[in-house]
């Protein structure tokens, strides 16, 4: 069964935010609304330092806590396991925001909760999500984990990787190549 996933190469990413802006424009997001974002963590003391830069977003979890927390069924699993919010069903109660281990959701000014869709309107047609498509460092890749030949499957087979907060048991599907 199709299982959409994303890989994010922390070695290649320069944290330029191109993914963030492309997402905002592709999805016509409101001012102050973000479906993806950059985090940079630096460790060490001058001059012995190391940094990790990540482009983060909804993890489209296998056991998405947001879906189970949603009282109206607005948060749901869609094609390829992608977690979506049906804006028409959402009351803006924020139960999902409290449940999400990744702080991936925000309240849209129109009253519903919004978050990354893996650009399902594109990916369901075989196109990459906007963030993947724009990325000048090619840090982002998207594909079907169940397909052995997919770029994400091949990267995960070949490279060291991690997910964020695996201990929550949510089963995230955004993988960080390290």
């Amino acid at each position: 069964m199709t299982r959409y996933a994303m890989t994010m190469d922390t070695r290649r990413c320069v944290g330029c935010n191109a993914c963030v802006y492309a997402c905002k424009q592709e999805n016509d997001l409101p001012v102050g609304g973000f479906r993806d974002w950059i985090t940079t963590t630096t460790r060490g003391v001058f001059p012995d330092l190391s940094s990790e830069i990540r482009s983060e977003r909804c993890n489209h979890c296998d056991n998405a806590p947001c879906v189970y927390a949603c009282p109206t069924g607005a948060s749901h699993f869609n094609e390829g396991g992608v977690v979506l919010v049906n804006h028409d069903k959402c009351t803006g109660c924020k139960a999902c925001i409290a449940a999400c281990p990744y702080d991936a959701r925000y309240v849209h000014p129109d009253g519903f909760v919004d978050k990354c869709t893996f650009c399902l309107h594109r990916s369901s047609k075989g196109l990459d999500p906007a963030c993947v498509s724009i990325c000048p460092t090619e840090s982002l890749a998207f594909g079907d984990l169940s397909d052995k030949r997919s770029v994400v499957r091949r990267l995960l087979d070949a490279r060291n990787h991690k997910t964020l907060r695996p201990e929550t048991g949510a089963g995230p599907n955004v993988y960080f190549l390290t």
Partner: protein
Amino acid sequence: MSLSRREFIKIGAGATAAVGLGSGLVTQWWGLDNNPIPNPNTEGDRIVPTFCELCFWKCGVLAHVKKGPDGQERVVKITGNPDHPLSRGKLCPRGTGGTGLLYDPDRLKQPLVRTKSKRGEDIFEAVSWETALDEVAAKLMKVKEEHGPEALALFSHGFGGSWFKHLLKAMGSKNIAAPSYAQCRGPREVGYWLTFGSGIGSPEAVDAEHARCIVLMGSHLGENMHNTHVQDFSRAIDRGADIIVVDPRYSTAASKARHWLPIKPGTDIALLLAWMHVIITEKRYDADYIQKHAIGFDELKKHVEAKTPEWAYPITGIRPEKIRETARLMAGAAPATLIHPGRRSTWYGDDTQRERGKAILAALLGSWGREGGYLIPSKMSVQPYPDQPYAQTPKAALDRVKEGLYPLADETLASGLCDISVPGEAAMNLKGWIVYGTNLIQSLPDYRKTVKAIQALDFIVTVDVLPAEICGWSDVVLPESTYLERTDDLWNPGYREPFVAMRQQAVEPLYQSKPGWWMAKELANRMGLAAYFPWKDSLEYVRERATRSGLDFDTLQAKGVVKGAVVPTTEEQGLTLSFDTESGKIELYNQTLKNLGFDPIPDYYPVEEPPAGSFRLITGRAPMHTFGRTTNNRFLSECYDENEVWVNADVAKGLGFKNGDRVILVNQDEVRSEPISLRATQRVRGDAVYIVHGYGHTAEGLKFAYKRGASDSLLTTNYKVDPIMGGTGMNVNFVRIEGVA
């Protein structure tokens, strides 16, 4: 069903759903099987390929245009053009953010003329285009008649400036300059030209993608987002290239590096000499390449004999074993070692020599004209049009206050045109300025001098998109359409593969703004120069140029780009190297420099140190901004809307500051910045502080950027001029940090 979604939900799912069960309408609404895939519909009704103007890399973009409910067409999305060799379908944040410029509410909306106010008061009267153009034409003609055409100057930065360059040449003046030379990449151009007989140019044709080792000296790729270079840099990282970063600050690039060398600012030449010492004494240079292509090796060998890593250590702060290790690393990967040329090289006034040092190091590694090093690009030829020759063009630009100054400058100095406009500094002063797309108050060092020059002019007109500071100092302000609203000239850069790109209009100009070609043509008509603008509009002009050049204009319009035949760019690909120097060889030792009284091989001289309690101010870029040009762009500011000052965490603690404190920077001339946040970080040396360039606008018309962040430009009241080519070294300002009460 008249209930809105929210009212419906308020009533309560239980009751309503029970009543409506089986009604069809409600099951359709609530049905778990009916969760449609949401589509934001931003693909647009049509897609216009053009190229970007948010920075000067000029990536190919696709403007997605969509008709709104009001019938107006809008650019709803900008994506990378996959056919364009510089973007390859990818964009940096600024490329996407072109919409933030197009729909900036603060845009100049109509022509403005200063009538009752004094110059600099920023008070204008809105007038018709007729009135504005009549005024500009009359004033320019008056300067020309009273002082000669050579008293006119054009400052131009941006691709649309071509029309005004043509206009000025038609008027008989050669005084055309961009701050991108003497304030930016100029020393690099001259340093490489003196060594290899060719500058680097823009876009810099280097082969980072195939480099096995990349050395960045002060260049912060990843924060500086020149798209193709960042793409290549990332590919090199993916291929396992070793990155060496020389920077007082732990930049994004440094975080990707195997070796970060946090050098003491101003000592780069000492490090370069020590690297050469190691590579030469350990016989790690490309002996065949040097033998075949270079002259002056024996002199160089002697020159660096005593420049040991131990000698460089107390100067640079880089440990000798680190200098040796990095030298061996780059030699081991040679010739696929890229000593990256960087871009802004105006640091300390000795910059041509430092850039020459980089070029000499690259020569020792044999990487000029080699895969993984520097490419030798070729251009597609584009025929000129119209054929009207320029009349009475003087031999040279008037950009030196004295003869013999800056003898090796190979472009006109913007700072020089400014200097020569200040009364008393030269035998003849410039009297009229046309300023196109460059905010001289921020782009030239020491704004006090710039203002002095402006106040002495007979006339100054500015063509811009936004009401930047320079507009406030002008007599007439002409509102230009943004790049998305106009068709400009063709562009044929030299890069990995030759191509010609076209900028074409995506939407109708907003407000009363007009494209530059129209303004230049209208002015020409009024000044009796109509013969220089024989075409109806810019589309007709580019079609004629393309046709004359044998380019397929239909493809150019449809794809935004036409590519030429791929030609060899490296020796490996079959290119025969040649060098346009005096000797016809790579000049490790340069006789021209010697004859002019300069060092024929770079040498290290100490730069002035910050006084106790002060820090050297160093500047750089944020990936979503291009100087002060984009800091008013509300879309791009969503992720970074104000600069902060990076201060070494231990130093900050010693001064009693903590992360996030609001502080003011005060420079050596007691110029004070706007308050900004202090970022206490381990990522910078203790003797320097860092801010992102372009903030702290003082123009009230830039309503978003006004007084937001600290302006490094205002703090740059000191600069040191490179005696070789006139570049203005600007990393020579020192600031102390004061808390905000």
